[in-house]
């Protein structure tokens, strides 16, 4: 039979259990503030990661949007359809002016049931990587190879319920559209003349591209040429042969400059950026720089939230201190008895300090669990509501910092009550109660 005895730890736990309401409320306060801090840190890191993902291995983005930031938000994150087009001749002149690794034309503006469509070339799948180092992967089917084939991003496939082989009609703009089997003449400007066949579904990338549908650039041009010809009173099927220069419009160009083997950076970056900036008809953006700018804009709000969470953590530590300090009044006799039995002043100081640390540790660990659950809930909500895919796991560095900070504050909070226990006059507290 193992020997039983009483330990300092048992005395600490017994003291905490003797005042359950105060103990649990204090643990709850610490847990809430730790969870709040971790979720805010985690969301900030995860949101940054999610924004970093979409730009992949692009060096420069060219568009006709009003500013580089708008160009990135529209061209990579599908915030809105770009309002101004770029002529195909401009694309050709840019492409021929410098030996880019690749220059991929894109056109946005159409949609399917609210999901944005991107018309592009086959290079988009073979050369552009939505996440640097992670090329596109197909969940099923194939990439488009000819006009009027459509490839679905993972989230778009899930939200639309479309499967391989189904046909869809696209909408000009972001209005409602519908499946090929359900034509509806009253649903706005829907290109009912040209059904697109679903030929592929992409694996999730964790970027905004997951919400989009991808078609061949020529298909898009034919749709808009058809509209032009209809307005001009020309009936009949429109084919690639009917395309005029004015039909061949794009809204963006994804550029990658030459790099040294094993490096993602290009020595020509700044020079080429400056060269393109001199063209007033276009806007050129370095996506990474614009994302950094976006985060700088929101960092003040971010800082306020984190400041508030730190304030809650400090106030929970003050609550721990008050709860322990007030409990000392009722525990002076217990402390005096322990001292009579042989406990030193240092030992009772340690017992009370340990109580504070136990409360803080229990609160901090509960807070980590809360933060994990909160992160999972928040990431599910963000994915469902705005398609932003974030990793709900906690950043180990932030977790260690918050845990360490909480425990340090708990230790500081325990000093005053522990000092009060240290100073309990033993003899005076052994007398019979009056």
């Amino acid at each position: 039979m193992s020997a039983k005895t009483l330990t300092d730890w048992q005395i600490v736990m017994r003291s905490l259990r003797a005042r359950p309401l105060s103990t649990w409320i204090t643990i709850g306060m610490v847990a809430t503030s730790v969870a709040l801090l971790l979720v805010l840190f985690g969301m900030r890191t995860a949101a940054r990661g999610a924004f970093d993902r979409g730009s992949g291995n692009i060096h420069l983005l060219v568009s006709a949007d009003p500013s580089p930031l708008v160009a990135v938000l529209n061209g990579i994150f599908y915030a809105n359809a770009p309002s101004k087009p770029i002529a195909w001749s401009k694309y050709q002149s840019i492409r021929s002016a410098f030996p880019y690794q690749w220059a991929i034309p894109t056109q946005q503006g159409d949609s399917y049931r609210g999901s944005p469509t991107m018309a592009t070339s086959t290079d988009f799948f073979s050369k552009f990587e939505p996440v640097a180092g992670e090329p596109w992967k197909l969940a099923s089917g194939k990439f488009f190879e000819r006009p009027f084939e459509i490839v679905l991003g993972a989230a778009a496939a899930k939200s639309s319920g479309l499967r391989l082989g189904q046909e869809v009609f696209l909408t000009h703009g972001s209005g409602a559209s519908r499946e090929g089997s359900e034509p509806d003449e009253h649903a706005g400007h829907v290109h009912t003349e040209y059904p697109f066949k679903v030929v592929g579904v992409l694996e999730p990338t964790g970027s905004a591209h997951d919400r989009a549908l991808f078609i061949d650039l020529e298909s898009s041009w034919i749709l808009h040429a058809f509209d032009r010809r209809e307005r001009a009173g020309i009936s009949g099927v429109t084919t690639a042969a009917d395309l005029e220069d004015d039909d061949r419009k794009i809204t963006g160009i994804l550029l990658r400059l030459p790099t040294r083997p094993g490096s993602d950076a290009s020595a020509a970056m700044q020079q080429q950026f400056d060269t393109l900036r001199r063209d007033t008809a276009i806007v050129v953006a370095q996506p990474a720089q614009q994302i950094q700018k976006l985060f700088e804009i929101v960092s003040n709000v971010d800082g306020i939230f984190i400041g508030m969470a730190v304030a809650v953590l400090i106030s929970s530590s003050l609550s721990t201190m008050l709860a322990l300090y007030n409990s000392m009044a009722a525990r002076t006799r217990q402390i005096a008895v322990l001292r009579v039995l042989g406990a030193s002043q240092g030992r009772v100081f340690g017992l009370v300090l340990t109580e504070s640390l136990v409360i803080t540790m229990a609160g901090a660990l509960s807070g980590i669990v809360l933060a994990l659950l909160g992160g999972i809930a928040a990431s599910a909500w963000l994915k469902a509501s705005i398609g932003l895919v974030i990793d709900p796991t906690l950043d180990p560095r932030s977790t260690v910092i918050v845990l360490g900070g909480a425990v340090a504050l708990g230790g500081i909070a325990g000093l005053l009550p522990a000092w009060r226990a240290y100073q309990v006059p033993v003899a005076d507290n052994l007398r019979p109660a009056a």
Partner: protein
Amino acid sequence: MPAPALIIRDLRFSYPEAAWALSVPHLQVEAGEHVLLVGGSGRGKSTLLQVVAGLRELGSGSVEVAGMRMDTLRGAARDEARGRSIGMIFQTFNLLHGFTALENVFAALMFSSMPAAEHEHRARTLLSTLGIANADAEVDRLSVGQQQRVAVARALAARPALVLADEPTASLDPENTETAMDLIQSACRAEGAALLCTSHDPSMRARFARIETIDAMIAGAAR
């Protein structure tokens, strides 16, 4: 021959701003001896026990418990010496509430020199000897008589050379006083511990072969 349980030499103690001072030129309690310390209320009986236990700093003189100078020890060393050599019994028992009878005895043992592996056997044996059948019951659920037995067990748990009993029967009726003192004295004898017991109850005198009157030790004026 074992060292005397207690030797006090030229002890003087006074409270700040007090009108009197405690003065004990010499008091020796032999190992296993039982001594009754009598005197009126407020004459310093409890104070003397606290000074002996090292809970109050004496002004001058010396206090030696089981051959160890308590007055020269400071801080944790004095606390450790008290835990190992002195057991204390109080009028209101001063048990640890919320803890079981067994844990109250463990509380004394955890500061003693006894190995932890022996604590349970020692505590259960003592409690059983003193008539506590349910050692795992919280002390708040025990009768007053049982609580006193737990207090006695706790005082003797670390096998102290000296037990200081401060008015242990002050709140008891005559019948229970007899029972309680039988318990304390027999337990101390069984454990070989000396007993220095304070009381203002004249009926206690018959129980002790040696009686010291504290009134005779009052100096009369504060230093």
